[in-house]
């Protein structure tokens, strides 16, 4: 790892630095401010705040949080306005290129921008809100030609919605994540022919409402248990070869190949939390979520570094991003308060490092549960309840989500249907674990079929 700042001098000091001005960063910064932390700076590499929502011009945002149906830019605008009225310091066109922890436990954030050059900030606390990126073709090793006409759906969405450019005329979409589904409809509106949406799993990885509103309403076939096995075309895509897969092994079944003539292949094959900075700083990353391990306060393995939004785990609804990020903002404000108190009064250690054992209880993912967040519960938790998020590993009908505390089921929720495309939330009242909190080691969450 290249470290450019041995014996670095900070140029600017702040209490709290928020990296990313998407919905996560904005909500976190605003709630930290409301919780009394005045000295907050939000750093954003794009020219405008709003994050990925700027290109999500479809509606369907805010149903849970605002109880209204908004478009992405409208949802973002509510926070941007609030940021303006509360004089939140947002610095756009400013990219964070390095994050590290200084000897005194504070954090060094190296940024560049065309107007201010290279600036190193020093902060007591940092909130990671960098969002996620799309998994490219090469990550899956999709074979075939490497010609023009192949891109991810998020790139296509940006081209269409922010640049006014159309990627192609005859389109096949591989993967049925939400962005893929939304783009199937969007490109149909623009006069393109979306020939098929091809999905290797036996179910869509997107929201059910998107499958209905974006594919079914426009008669776009969703080919489940299928994948792209070859791409043809020298300069630009001329066809893709699609084959059925064995549902168990996911290997293509020979003899089922069909050729689909098209000029564009869009990929919607997964999102990866953008944790390069987190890794640089040494934050522990969870293999399942690909985001930092956190406790109920969104505090990572490094004291003073918090994470929220898509950088923590990929969300399908921005409303939950907002809720989670507000919690992170409050926790960061509280952390800074305690740091300050520690400095002035020399009291006990400000925070517990996040790890299994002494300070915290592990949330353990049992059968059927993937990508559990948070991973830990601090024993000194003073909240009334903790929100637990996860994704089921397949489609479940009439199954139970159970929370197990030392042999005892303390929560049993029956769900009509759960799909991997939709995050499941469980609200765990702290009073239900309070009695055991000192000796408890793990709390298990699992799915049980009837």
């Amino acid at each position, binding site marked *: 790892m290249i470290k450019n700042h041995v014996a670095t001098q900070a140029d600017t000091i702040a209490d709290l630095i928020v990296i990313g001005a998407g919905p996560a960063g904005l909500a976190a910064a605003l709630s930290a401010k409301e919780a009394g932390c005045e000295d907050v700076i939000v750093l954003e*590499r794009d020219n405008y705040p709003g994050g990925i929502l700027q290109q999500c011009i479809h509606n369907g945002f805010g149903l849970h949080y605002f109880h209204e149906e908004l478009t992405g830019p409208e949802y973002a605008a509510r926070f941007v306005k609030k940021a303006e009225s509360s004089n939140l310091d947002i610095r756009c066109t400013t990219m964070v290129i390095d994050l590290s922890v200084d000897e005194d436990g504070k954090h060094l954030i190296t940024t560049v921008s065309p107007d201010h050059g290279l600036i190193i900030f020093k902060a007591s606390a940092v909130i990671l809100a960098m969002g996620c990126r799309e998994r490219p073709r090469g990550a899956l090793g999709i074979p075939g*030609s490497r010609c023009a006409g192949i891109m991810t759906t998020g790139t296509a969405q*940006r*081209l269409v919605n922010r640049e006014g450019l159309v990627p192609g005329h005859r389109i096949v979409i591989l993967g049925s994540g939400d962005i893929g589904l939304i783009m199937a409809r969007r490109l149909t509106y623009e006069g393109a022919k979306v020939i098929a949406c091809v999905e290797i799993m036996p179910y869509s990885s997107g929201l059910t409402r998107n499958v209905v509103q974006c594919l079914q309403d426009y008669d776009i076939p969703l080919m489940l248990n299928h994948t792209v096995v070859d791409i043809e075309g020298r300069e*630009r895509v001329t066809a893709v070869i699609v084959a059925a897969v064995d549902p168990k092994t996911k290997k*293509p079944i020979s003899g089922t190949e069909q050729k689909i003539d098209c*000029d564009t292949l869009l990929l919607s094959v997964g999102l990866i939390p953008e944790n390069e900075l987190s890794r640089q700083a040494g934050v522990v990353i969870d293999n399942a979520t690909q985001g930092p391990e956190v406790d109920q306060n969104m505090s990572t393995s490094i004291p003073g570094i918090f994470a929220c939004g898509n950088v923590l785990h990929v969300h399908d609804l921005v409303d939950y991003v907002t809720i989670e990020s507000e919690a992170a903002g409050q926790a960061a404000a509280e952390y800074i308060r305690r740091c300050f108190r520690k400095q002035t009064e020399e009291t006990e250690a400000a925070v517990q490092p996040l790890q299994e054992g002494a300070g915290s209880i592990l949330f353990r993912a049992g059968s059927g549960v993937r990508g559990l967040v948070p991973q830990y519960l601090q024993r000194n938790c003073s909240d009334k309840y903790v929100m637990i998020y996860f994704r089921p590993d397949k489609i479940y009908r009439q199954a139970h989500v159970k929370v197990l505390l030392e042999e005892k089921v303390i929560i049993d929720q029956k769900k009509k249907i759960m799909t991997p495309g939709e995050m499941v939330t469980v609200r765990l009242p702290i009073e239900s674990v309070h009695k055991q909190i000192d000796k408890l080691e793990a709390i298990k969450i699992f799915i049980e079929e009837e």
Partner: protein
Amino acid sequence: MKNTYDVCVIGAGIIGAAVARELSRFNLKTVVVEKQSDVSEGTSKANSAIVHSGYDAEPGSAKAKYNVAGSRVFEDWCRELTVPYRRNGSLVLAFSEDGLPELEKLIERGRANGVEGLSILNQSDLRAREPRVGTDAVYALLAETGAICSPYDLTIRLIEHAIVNGVELKLNFEVNSISKTDDRFLVSSAQEVIECRVVINAAGVYADRINDMISQDHFCITPRRGEYWMIDKALSPVFNSTVFQLPTAMGKGVLVTPTVENTIIIGPTAEDIDDKEDVRTTAAKLEQILEIASRSWPDIPRNRFITAFAGLRAHCDRGDFIIGKSSDVSGYYLAAGIESPGLTAAPAIATEITCQVVEELGVSVTDSFLPPPPAIESFRESGNQRRRELIAADPAYGRIICRCEQVSEAEIRQAINRPNGAKTVDAIKRRTRAGMGRCQSGFCLPLVLKILAEELRIDPADITKAGEGSEIISGHLGGDYHD
């Protein structure tokens, strides 16, 4: 106006570029013609990028001679042109005791070829050097002079250097016929005719077709495809050396190597194909690579691939490089059948061909030979102090366009505005690395399109990935479609 030159080099891969640069030291009017939209669009952009030390080639062969000579000067060439080069050393693994004599044979062959720095490592020395190597590797040959480089970067820089010294480059010029009258050649594409005294065939997998246009001394080149995986640079310190395997009953073996950009490549396969353009990757071969490579690197992280690619070896039925004066046509020179170690051999091949041409034409050294134009200064590779200076001088250095590789807007604009400046998205990629990182251009593509359109003053819908027909997008919102 008639297009008259002394020398016409056909093909702008590493060989054509190296020859052109060497010729530019002399009082010659040289043109390089290339059918693609940029240089290094053929084999020179997709190979293992190893500067071989030279123990592999048959003693006495042209391959051995030019390999060893090329390897000796390679570092100097890279340094002069500010191209990355790292002498990381190569290892050849033996997975059983039976391998030891095989390794010793390689050492003998290497010594016969004049290679220095060859030795055998036992298992503990091997593990001390490369702790992640598979535990059933019992011996290894260490070739200390083995190195890694950036083949496309070197090709691009050689052409830039040739251009500042007067060489002309004609892109999108596909030679479809060559005729000779007296001592003049006419080299034609569908659009243009060039007259010249000397023709140099450096057409890679097409060298046999070019040869058939001029010469009766035929040979045949079969494209032999090699596929690769590329792994995220986040894993980079895994291997320092380039790790080959001794051929076994299971097959020829594949290599695992760091690149100068700190990614890791695993490959290649070897498969003879018919189509000289077919660089597709296939599911079967990609799987095979992992199976074989897992002996060298048991824990290949399958979730860290960023791309897969393939290149074509120009395998000649004569089994060796064909270098220099043609046997039947005066003024016609060949650099044909340049499969591996062709990259390593390029400097030596270029020097040899240049000597022969200069001797035939009886020309003198130019007295105004200029140094290479400055390389694009990379934000990513600069220290913070230098970064501050760069941004102060040009604020566009502070706007990062490719986030994975930290490429700034300034670098992209420089890549466009220079000798043989980039005109396509892939050309930007090879000059700056924008789009070559882990997201594979997901974020920077729209921004690169915009900058290219602005600098070249063309419509974004006309910007291509790599030349006509490879347009990135189809048109503008509101039905203004291009067809």
